[in-house]
């Protein structure tokens, strides 16, 4: 199993929409919407949040994401009602970006703390992209300290959009590797998406760690296959 997510919003439609969006990238993660009031009105309901936490209790813990002020307070109150369990974390994160980042991280089998952290760092800007001036051949080169690099060219029409970003971040997230693409953490779907890499753009991949070679080869295979979108 994986860490589950509970999405708390003032609006039932908004919570359901966030779940729909996140589910595309994390098909195996339990995602529960707790939006709106019992009568369908705008607001947050303790009962709805507590029942969602019950449904999300898969044994691996749950991260709760919230929208505005009273949603945060309702989530905190629900947590207090349940006896402040250590298996439930409340993420201080933007609802949409945080939910996507958390869902993809959960899909990779990461720990409760890692899923919460992925949500809370979802808006951090990626490191500055490397100087695009130099044109190195598309080859894997072994460097000092088992660093593996590659320069790849995106060939699929949509570029590195949400779905392929989720695929890469998901698979890479499960590997023992530090890997960056154009300076962005390639284990973070949000970081990859903020690159806005389009068809024809170059990706400079750099990885270290025990799985570095396997990770870079995986990125190469996915990019060469156009992420299955050709």
């Amino acid at each position, binding site marked *: 199993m994986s860490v589950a997510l509970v999405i708390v919003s003032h609006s039932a439609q908004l919570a359901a929409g966030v779940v729909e969006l996140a589910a595309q990238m994390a098909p195996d993660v339990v995602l529960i919407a707790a939006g709106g*009031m019992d009568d369908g009105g705008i*607001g*947050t309901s303790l009962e709805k949040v507590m029942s969602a936490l019950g449904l999300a209790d898969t044994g691996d813990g749950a991260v709760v994401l919230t929208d505005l002020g*009273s949603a945060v307070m309702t989530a905190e109150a629900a947590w207090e009602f349940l006896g402040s369990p250590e298996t439930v974390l409340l993420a201080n994160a933007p609802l949409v970006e945080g939910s996507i980042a958390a869902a993809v991280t959960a899909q990779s089998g990461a720990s409760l703390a890692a899923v919460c952290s992925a949500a809370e760092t979802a808006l951090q800007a990626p490191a500055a992209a490397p100087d695009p001036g130099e044109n190195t051949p598309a080859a894997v080169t072994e460097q000092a300290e088992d660093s593996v690099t590659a320069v790849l060219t995106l060939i699929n029409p949509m570029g590195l959009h949400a779905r392929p970003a989720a695929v890469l971040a998901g698979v890479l997230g499960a590997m023992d590797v530090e890997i960056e693409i154009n300076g962005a953490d390639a284990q973070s779907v949000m970081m990859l998406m903020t690159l806005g890499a389009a068809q024809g753009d170059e990706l400079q991949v750099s990885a270290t760690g025990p799985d570095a070679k396997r990770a870079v080869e995986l990125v190469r295979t996915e990019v060469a296959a156009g992420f299955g979108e050709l």
Partner: protein
Amino acid sequence: MVNTTLDVTWAIDWLRKSAAVVAEHRMALIELDRAIGDGDHGENLDRGFSAILEKLDAEAPATPGTAFKLAAMTLMSKVGGAAGPLYGTAYLRAATAVGDAVELDAATLVAALTAARDGVVARGKAEAGEKTMIDAWTPAVDAATAAADSGAAPAEVLAAAATAAEVGAVATEPLIARKGRASYLGERAIGHRDPGAESSALILRAAAQAAGVEA
């Protein structure tokens, strides 16, 4: 002093009187909130306390603590706005403070009011002077503590708390809001009473009235 024993009958009567006074002041609270917030405070609280009335009919709590817990669950589930978790936490912490007590003496009452106030502070992360519910609750707790220390009966402690809360609510008028939606208004919030402080004063007055103290 008709009913000076703070038992479950008092607790239920307090909740019923709160529902009545919130319904009566529904429009006034809406207008206060419309001036500096989103205008839903009166409607939200009225919905929450109406739901408490239905629950009281169905469940008949046996102690003040269970009555407070019923109020906490219902307000947090039915109010919708920020008042739900804030008042809900207040009643929840009060329920914990009184435990299984069948009747509240002055010291237990002060402990419950203090726990309720601390719950609002923890949940809302507000401090005194920020134009919020706290500006009614903190003077109420201080007055209740002083009254209990001087040997006042529980009903008199409640009366002191209610009066201090009313003064505190009026005193929010010249303040600039630092929390909630009113904080976006800056100096334009000056001159308007905080609706949460006002409803807190109404509800604390209802507690005193349920104990037989006429306002």
